[in-house]
């Protein structure tokens, strides 16, 4: 048997999902949690020896849900699909028989489940009714299973009304012990018990829904009465699958969907922290706990976020204190994010990177609340080739790069990438990442340049259109040979056009330089050939 819990709340927050997860995991080691639908499925085989009959198990689940503080539709069915359809129907319509199609609503009698029409909905339960219900529930445990079942079904209809009324009477609701809607579908009862459910529960695609609407098929029972072969011939594979679901057939076993839990640690401090060292101690503890959780889940993280809530009265910068109101508005939080090129779950690595980052960007005021959050990802699995050279260890390299960046500057370390432009020497610095593949290029001997950054302003004497003498900082000489001009220009369609003529000049001391002249800017020495 499979149990299905469907949340009745319209809002499906993380807290509600965690509650149904806790409830499902209380009864079964493996549960399928569908966060987007607010639904949990789990196997209850074997619980009979511990709890009792299916009805008693349903009551136990309902009791646990009540204890955890949520209201759900609970359906026990022989297979996953029937349980899911039943729970969805129960949650949406209050009972499996309350749905009536538009065409039949005025004429047809209530379906086999005998639900109430919405127009005849009763007001909130009176105290006497509620007491009766309560007594009925109390009596369930003392009766035999056969009698309990009918009581539970009767109770469901009472609860249905309550759910439909939006639980207006809070006091009475709190006094009711079991709030959730429960239903047990025994083997062989799938068709009969699910027959009154509308097909919308199965969310058929638009084309199928229209076709079935034309045929006058609105409920599970109506679709299940059609011949399977005819449905397959006319509606194809999708139609046949819908037919099987309407018949209450099981299509697949429980699927434990991979959840992406968010790993967050939060510490509220009694006294604000001003120094980074005690902050590091706390971060270390929090990171160790998060990494232990990551390891337990078999996950890793490639991003760590630290959010520090600040005490606005403890700012250290006197310049900022001139306008305290503005100050308070500006920064009450200090946010730092560390990204790793490869996932890791080493707390020491995260801590070291955070320490380096916080040293470079310290919080402007004392810290009152620390929140650390990591984004879990699949860990890196890599098998290097036996004959391939081993590269630097990525985690260790990341720390080394962070340390280097602390004293050479963030933009002064990385791997260069040439830009797609003709502008001489245009490149940008990218983050260095240890990759497994590389481009095989044609290796040749190209006379390398040593570039002066920034270019040296120079004074150049020209004779007969050729440079004859150069003077620049640390450089002075007579030109013995020269080649040029090599004219180039670009970006004339932008606000920063460039236009230059280049010369390669050999000086008397044997050195070779590249010089260039820019309009309105004059002469510069770009670099030397080396």
């Amino acid at each position, binding site marked *: 048997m499979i149990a299905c819990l469907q949340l009745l709340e319209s809002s499906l927050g993380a807290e509600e999902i965690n509650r149904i997860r806790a409830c499902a995991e209380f009864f079964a080691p493996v549960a399928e949690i569908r966060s987007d639908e607010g639904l949990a499925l789990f196997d209850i085989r074997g619980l009979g020896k511990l709890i009792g009959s299916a009805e008693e198990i349903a009551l136990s689940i309902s009791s646990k849900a009540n204890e955890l503080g949520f209201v759900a539709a609970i359906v026990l069915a022989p297979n996953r699909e029937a349980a899911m359809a039943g729970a969805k129907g129960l949650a949406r319509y209050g009972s499996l028989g309350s749905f009536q199609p538009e065409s039949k609503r005025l004429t047809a009698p209530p379906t086999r489940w005998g639900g109430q029409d919405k127009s005849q909905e009763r007001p909130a339960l009176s105290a006497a009714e509620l007491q009766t219900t309560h007594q009925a529930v109390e009596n369930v445990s003392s009766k035999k299973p056969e009698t309990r079942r009918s009581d539970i079904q009767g109770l469901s209809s009472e609860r249905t009304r309550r759910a439909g009324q939006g639980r207006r009477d809070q006091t009475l609701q709190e006094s009711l012990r079991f709030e959730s809607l429960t239903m047990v579908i025994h083997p062989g009862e799938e068709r009969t018990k699910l027959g009154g459910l509308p097909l919308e529960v199965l969310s058929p695609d638009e084309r199928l829904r229209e076709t079935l609407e034309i045929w006058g098929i609105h409920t599970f029972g109506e679709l299940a009465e059609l011949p399977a072969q005819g449905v397959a011939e006319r509606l194809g594979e999708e139609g046949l699958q819908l037919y099987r679901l309407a018949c209450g057939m099981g299509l697949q076993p429980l699927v434990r969907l991979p959840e992406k839990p968010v790993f967050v640690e939060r510490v509220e401090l009694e006294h604000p922290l001003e120094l980074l060292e005690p902050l590091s101690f706390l971060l270390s503890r929090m990171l160790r706990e998060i990494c232990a959780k990551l390891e337990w889940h078999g996950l890793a993280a490639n991003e760590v976020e630290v959010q520090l809530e600040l005490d606005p009265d403890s700012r250290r910068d006197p310049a900022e204190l001139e306008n305290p109101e503005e100050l308070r508005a500006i920064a009450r939080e200090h946010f730092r994010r560390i990204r790793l090129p490869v996932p890791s779950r080493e707390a020491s690595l995260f801590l070291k990177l955070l320490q380096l980052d916080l040293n470079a960007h310290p919080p402007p005021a004392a810290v009152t609340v620390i929140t650390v959050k990591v984004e879990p990802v699949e860990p890196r699995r890599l098998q290097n080739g036996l004959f*391939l*050279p*081993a*590269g*630097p*260890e990525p985690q*260790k*390299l990341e720390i*080394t*790069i962070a*340390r*280097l960046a602390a*004293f*050479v*500057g963030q933009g*002064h*370390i*990385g*791997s*260069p*990438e*040439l830009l797609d432009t003709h502008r001489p*020497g245009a*490149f940008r*610095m*990218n983050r260095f*990442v*240890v*990759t497994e593949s*590389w*481009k*095989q*290029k*044609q*290796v*040749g*001997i*190209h*006379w*390398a*340049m*040593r*570039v*002066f*950054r920034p270019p040296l302003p120079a004074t150049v004497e020209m004779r007969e259109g*050729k440079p004859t003498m150069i003077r620049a900082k640390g450089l002075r000489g007579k030109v013995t*040979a*020269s*080649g*040029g001009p*090599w004219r180039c220009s670009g970006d004339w369609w932008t606000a920063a056009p460039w236009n230059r003529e280049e010369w*390669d000049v*050999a000086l008397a001391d*044997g*050195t*070779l330089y590249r010089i260039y002249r820019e309009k309105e800017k004059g002469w510069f020495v770009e*670099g*030397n*050939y*080396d």
Partner: protein
Amino acid sequence: LCLDGPISSCEDGQRKGENPIRRNSMSALRQPVALSALRDPISIKSLRELQVEKHLSRDILKLSVPELDKVLEGLPKGAITEVFGPPSSGKSTLLHASLAAAVCAGEFCTLIDANDTFDPVSAEASGIDLTRLLWVRCGGNLENAIRAADMLVHGGGWGLIALDLGDLTPVALSRLPLSYWYRFRLAVQNTPTVMLVLEREPFVRSCAALAIEMRQAQPKWTGTHPRFQLLEAGTLEVAPKKPVGKGGRFEAKTRISA
């Protein structure tokens, strides 16, 4: 160094007649072996021969360019290679060729650029996949360059670590303690890393396993008329100084001839 050579040659000689257990115990007691070897004039080798032997016993990084392979056998792994020469002598050209060879062999390389003079355009023209190159720009700060080199050398995993001090004056470099180079030598020892140091004058000296002097290039211009010519190529000269090799010349292309 003089003692190292005879010890090894003496051990080789003893292998023929003596049992291996005694040979091992003899290698543990080096001093008596060395003295006995010194008494044998045949086993004494010159310093140059020892340098060549030691150089040959190392793994080398082949430069994979026919012109360069003729003049250089390669760069020794697990040792420091010193490349020195005046401006426009081809130090950077040799550096780019070495980086390209290492990257083509699947290695990761790092360049500690003391004066921020590395040119990615000519580096890519030499065949370097720039994604496998970590470039550290120190902006003329020698202390930062040495610190960066120390951290990267000790980090390990690099195929080639290049420390470019080519634009720093000899006066600034002479203030560096010699112990730095010993430290680097020990750090790269027994690793597959090639450490390349570029300078104007040799400062690594005894810590370098290979010292290469680059001599000023002879430019080659296109055309015959002096008013209408462009720089086509340069003939660069390599002269290995430690161990002393024959060296030779090779031609480096420019954007005109490439």
